[in-house]
């Protein structure tokens, strides 16, 4: 495995910069089949009616007998699409904003002081170890805790997400800071800028690529999550997209056609978000970045 991997890397590096690497493009396009084939299956199922479902391969891969977007319209009706979408967008959006502020601050403080103060190192391991707590053990106590605090609603879900993704994000920020040269902030401090101000004016903007990465990863986790909103918001009528999508599954029957249509619809916003963030990841350290 590694040997062929090495070879591939060597080949890609051997090309002269400035020109597109055609061979590599071809390899990567071929690799896409592993994604596009399942996606193709999902899309044609989303376009078919339940009576077109079969167990034989030719039938499963064939195009629907007539092309219609009825499933998509029906799926949007069943899930109360715009309403659920708005809730999902608010939850994911607020979670991302809060994560960027809270986690980056913590990551910066920890990253700066970890080497000098034992306390910060301890805090780092304390938070990162949270990654390995199985959600199932936290779930029931959290249900009770949020109910007592009166935040068994969207706000509570957001706060929980901020906590759930904290270990990963703090780790990412701390790791990223290792690559940021100290000279810049030292220069700022000589100029008389406070630590607080240096952070917001210099460091925070500098971490843009990492913000984009954190935003994408956090969004990935929250967008499709069913369990947290299900148990925390139970009893309220607020739905998110994944919650509404449970409508397609009951104990003894699943409407795959409508469900797939709905999933594909739900996939689009996050895909767009990713593509936007991709540009930020690349454009981030524009001055010093590798010319990709």
């Amino acid at each position, binding site marked *: 495995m590694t040997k062929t991997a090495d070879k591939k890397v060597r080949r890609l590096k051997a090309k002269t910069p400035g020109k597109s690497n055609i061979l590599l493009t071809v390899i990567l396009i071929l690799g896409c089949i592993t994604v596009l084939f399942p996606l193709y299956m999902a899309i044609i199922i989303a376009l078919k009616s339940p*009576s077109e479902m079969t167990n034989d391969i030719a039938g499963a891969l064939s195009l629907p007998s007539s092309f219609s977007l009825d499933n998509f319209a029906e799926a949007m009706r069943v899930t109360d699409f715009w309403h659920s979408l708005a809730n999902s967008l608010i*939850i994911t959006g607020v979670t991302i904003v809060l994560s960027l502020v809270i986690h980056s601050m913590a990551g910066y403080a920890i990253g700066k002081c970890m080497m000098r103060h034992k306390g910060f190192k301890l805090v780092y391991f304390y938070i990162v170890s949270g990654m390995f707590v199985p959600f199932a053990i936290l779930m029931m106590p959290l249900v009770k805790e949020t109910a007592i605090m009166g935040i068994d*609603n969207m*706000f509570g879900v957001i706060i929980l997400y901020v906590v759930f993704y904290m270990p990963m994000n703090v780790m990412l920020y701390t790791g990223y800071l290792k690559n940021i040269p100290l000279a810049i902030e030292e220069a700022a401090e000589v100029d008389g800028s406070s630590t607080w101000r240096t952070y917001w004016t210099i460091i925070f903007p500098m971490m843009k690529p990492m913000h984009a990465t954190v935003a994408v990863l956090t969004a990935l986790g929250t967008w499709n999550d069913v369990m947290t909103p*299900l148990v925390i918001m139970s009893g309220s009528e607020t739905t998110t997209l994944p919650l509404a999508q449970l409508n397609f599954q*009951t104990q003894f029957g699943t409407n795959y056609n409508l469900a797939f249509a709905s999933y594909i619809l739900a996939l689009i916003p996050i895909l767009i978000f990713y593509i936007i963030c991709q540009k930020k990841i690349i454009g981030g350290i524009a001055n010093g970045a590798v010319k990709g």
Partner: protein
Amino acid sequence: MFKRKFAVLALIAALITTSFAVAGCSSQGGENGKTVITMLQYKPEAVAAFEEIEERFNATHDDIELRIESPNEAMTVLKTRLIKEDYPDIVGIGGDINYSNFLDADLFMDISDFEGINDIKPVYMEIEKSLEFIPEDGVYTLPYVANCAGILYNKDMFEENGWEIPTTWSEFTALCEEIQASGMTPLYFGFKDTWTCLSPWNSLAVSLSPADTCAQVNMGNTTFTEEYWDVAEKMKELLNYCEPNPYAYSYNDACTAFARGEVAMYPIGSYAVPQILSVNPDMNIDSFTFPANDNEEDNILTSGVDLQFSIMKECKNKEAAYEVLEFLFEDENIQIYLDNQNAIPCKEGDFTLPSMLDGMKSYIEEGRVSDFHDHHYPSEMSVDAMVQTYLLDTSDNATETFLTKFDTEWVRYNRDLIEKVKKYQEGLQ
């Protein structure tokens, strides 16, 4: 630069306020001094029927407002609401181990003074009684509708080939062999979804072992090795007549295969009919009781309570809740549910049964029914997976290995319960 920081803070504040505002929309409270009765029922697939019933109730009652919730993943939702102590007034759940556990946790109100009890078929009241870990005084639930399991068959296929409905085990195996000889597959299992293993298992267990097997084991009077030996052996025999490698195919595959006429019979419950009809809406499906015995008279139909209503102990308005129950059990409202869900009513009376249950009708009418055994199995023991493991085990002493494991695991998973039963028995003496 500072401006930017404030802009970010303002944005966060705005977003948080929005999320609060949106969350705040779902405020509760009875309007116009009406008593509000909330009900949570666990079958989201029946939401249409319940919406109709809810509407009819609210149109005819001035003093009570009925709110029926039919959430997805209802059991998880219900459990979390119990933790939050946010109790609905009435719950509609299934007659399975969850009910036993809830009852054991002392969550329900005694409703023995509810008049409607007398209209319920005694056999379903007995089934409810047998779900109590230790016999309780009083009545805690009212069975609403039942489902049943046995064998669904492709009626057209049977008619074309002149096959007869088997009524005994030997007739059944003979039929399977005949079907095989004509180059077709008699049975389809779909054991990839482990829970489907329990469908034929329940049918065999109901006919071949006493209804109170689990309770007897808990009292120490018998063992599963003794009671389930035939069940296990016959279960394995069935493997000769099904699709090759049934562990590769899921419940959904099985429904599709049956709907597409790839197979003659499908040993599953009436609950699978909607999924099958979604693939082939014109299919002619009928059913018969699993012929597990060599004597037709010994066969018993597997039928359990699919939906039952209990009033929570915390309910503040017993009278209003009773009024809701009375309304739910009115014949025309039951019929609304039956038409929507292909179910069997637990109330005595003249109801129209779904046609795909024709073959089981006589058993239902005579009350020759007994509860699914798995309604007594603790779900964490995963008996379905154990049955699947057993079927995959091709060694000679597989049955013994399996049943010995069944007995030892049973004791471990039911440790606290067995102790409770023992204490209760000692108290009796």
